[in-house]
């Protein structure tokens, strides 16, 4: 394998071409080469989800794939979600629910939630748990994160309805699973 290569990728909508060592992990490329330190590394083994980024819209552990694997693809990091100072609905939901304590896992949770809601706009609790089971949070006990994901789904629906009021069909309210109460 070549020692180094020129990586051509799109990060948060901006085309990037960089010479990198072939062995460079995507997380290191983002953090050290591009200075996008919002992507966090913790377990180094694809179980904690802290380093989750979206590659062509799919959630990926940036600690465990090569930067070279992002060649020709589009990468979205936590820095790419807010439109200037306008938070994404998922970021707003996590803010409103104070769905973090130390915050180290938060970027990964937000990106995993973005991927979930892009796929399932109105997830049941069981679907949320399934989608986020690969993201660890050591601080919160997860309750505010569940609340934030539910709120994020509502905020995204509202945003879509505001954009296209003509075909606003409110999603059927799914039965709440008896799992989280305050």
């Amino acid at each position: 394998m070549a020692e180094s290569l020129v990586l051509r990728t799109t990060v948060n909508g901006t085309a990037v071409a960089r010479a990198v060592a072939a062995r460079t992990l995507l997380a290191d490329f983002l953090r050290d080469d591009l200075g996008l330190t919002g992507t966090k590394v913790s377990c180094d083994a694809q179980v904690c989800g802290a380093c989750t980024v979206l590659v062509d819209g799919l959630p990926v552990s940036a600690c465990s794939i090569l930067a070279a694997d992002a060649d020709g693809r589009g990468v979205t990091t936590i820095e790419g979600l807010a439109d200037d100072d306008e938070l994404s609905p998922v970021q707003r939901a996590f803010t409103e629910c104070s769905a973090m304590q130390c915050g180290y896992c938060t970027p990964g949770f937000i990106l995993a939630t973005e991927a979930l809601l892009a796929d399932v706009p109105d997830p049941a609790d069981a679907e949320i748990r399934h989608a986020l089971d690969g993201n660890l949070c050591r601080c919160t006990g997860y309750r505010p994160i569940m609340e934030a994901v539910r709120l994020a789904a509502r905020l995204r629906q509202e945003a879509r309805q505001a954009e296209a009021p003509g075909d606003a069909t409110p999603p059927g309210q799914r039965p709440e699973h008896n799992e989280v109460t305050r």
Partner: protein
Amino acid sequence: MTAGGSGEIGGHSVGRVDALAKVTGRAGYAVDHRLPGCLHARVVRSQRAHARLTGISRDAALAVPGCVAVITAEDLLAAAAGRRGTGPLFLRFGHVVPDHWILAHDKVRYYGEPVAVVVAETPYAAYDAAELVDIDYQDLPPLMTPADALAADAPALHPDRYSGESIMPGTASGEEKGTWQPNVAYQADLAWGDAEAALASAPVVVETSGHFPMLFAYPMEPYNAVASFRDGILEVTSSAQHPFQVERDLARVFGLPLSQVRVQVPYIGGGYGAKSYTKIEPLTALAAWYTRRPVKLVLDVEESIYTTRADSADVTVRSGFERDGTLIARQIDVVLDTGAYLDNSAQVLEKSVNRCFGPYRIPHLQVTARAVYTSTSPASSYRGFGAAHCSFASETNMDLAAGQLGIDPIELRRRNLVARGQQLLPGRRAMDTDLADDLAVLREAITGYRPSGGRVLRATGVSCTVADAGALPSSTAQVRILSDGSVVLHTGATEMGQGSHTVLSQIVAEELGVPLAAVRVAPQDTLTSPFERTTGASRTTTVVGSAVQRACRDALEKISRMAAEIDGPGPRDGRPAAAPDIRGRADFAKVIRAWFGPGGGEVAGVGVVRRAGNFAQLPPFWEVGMVGVQVAIDPDTGQLDVEHLVTIGDVGKALNPAGVEGQDLGAATQGLGGALWEELIYDGQQIANANIIEYRVPRISDMPGRIDTILIERGDGPGPYGSKGVGEGARGPMGGAVASAVAAATGVWPDRLPLTPERIWRLCQAGKATTATGEPGDGERPRGVAEEAGK
């Protein structure tokens, strides 16, 4: 709420002040910090648990392109001798006993111990070079368990006793107490009455023993530090919970005045006690000193696990009761496996002694406790230590007794709880809350929800602890009212997720009558922050919050005097008029403008808390831990689901209710992890599961089916507005509660945690607990909470 406050305290929960930074990825952690020209370090670690170091081969490492240096303890000592302006280096650290070699010297004491540090131009080069360093060992007998270490013929792991080198006043090693034994790192005891005699004559005596596992707190940000050493000034950025404690250890390494050592701590990616005191900062600093370049060191998770774990504990409890359930005596022995170095396990042991016997009136008590050196990774603090280590053995002892006495386990506890104003520990603060009322709330909540259905065994368990919390009350805070009336708070209390920046900002807003958005907390930095002893022991809201409150009142007094001066002397006696009530941004800006004139200015207030006034008596407050769980067990697989979790937050006054509930749930969830899944397992000389795949922490799918985080507010805390600390309480009792529920469901009392599915399945087999008839929980069962709680 105080009159005229901004309404930022209590009742409702303001959002976290750090939420925006944390959802955008802009929140800075130490691991994100870079310095220009920075080198990168990688640690070469021992591959023996106990061995003499006989040689090191470094040529292959040095040949790696970009490798700058391979540094050992001997290299550092030699370099110090040859460098002008440098005194002798002190190559050990440890705030109680400085037994901890920064790099192994002469011998290694655990697998994973740093032997050398490789410094290179890039992290990858450092990684490659470190792989090529070869260490020669002469094996010594490893002492892998406390039993090995306490054997009569065991070699002393630390022949040097480091006597007289403690830099933490008021602590004494066994040697200073005159009872030094080889491999006993620390000992503590507590006794009153005559427990032995009382047990001999007690109508009912119940004995239990339990093993509490080695744990890893798993703060998700790994240990990391970046250091530079220039012109006799050392600057370190790290993820330390207690920057001022690290500063002190670093000053001693280099013989520097504290003023020349700067420790900066940005947001911390989880601490939970695992980042208390000094870890890798001295190693990083020495690498920077040696190479004369800034150096950054980031550990991976395996290295983090080897850097600090929590002590395992073997606890034996004998309790004597009257037939009516009155406790007569308890005799408790605690042995901690503290690993190769003491770190904060001295405090873990002291707190185990104070917290092992529960919140009960005990006429005759005898506690003996030892922290034992072994050839394993060093152990130290983890959230709510002491209570967590001992509640499993001591609270299941109460449940077992309840069964033998024919008394409901909650009722048995109620009969023995210390009342408000009664002494739990002689000479300490009397019990400052109504534990029986707390327990009644817990009973109502845990019995008020009855899931059913499924072929499962169901049972509930409760557990109670109290902890002498708050550590030593020493705190200084400074508030600066700026020229436009906005406010900066300077505090050394670190933000590791617990929400201290939010709640301290709320206190400032409330006291000064300014909006929360006008308050900012300055970063924690020993160069500019006032001294803060520690951020731990659930102390920040209570102790630091009081210092902040006093700082605000000092600033208000000053600015009010300034306003009075502007108004001129009083009309009759020439003395200044009574200070007007100055509050809020507009008032502040006006006074500062008028008093300073066109040059502009600001007003600073200082608040100090020390062992005086309402903090004269230790502990600053008692932290209550009361939890209940309902579990459902599949006897065929041992799979356990927590169907209901109840936590009681006896918080005095919740300044931010959502924050308090978040602390309780977070602590309880970590407690569930240690009760059900988490355990570091030594297989021979090394940890078999030093990773987050096999060290299994709670996931979102493990969330209890129903969660009640109950707050009890009586306004009786010593902190601001009647508050007292939370954060650790709910972790302490969790092991006991889960074990009680499992025992009630399976019919067998477990003697070790965690209760993994395999262990629960074995308990089901041993207890012949099945759901073969389809009726939940009808196996042979002990009298336990399951039968009694509903009565």
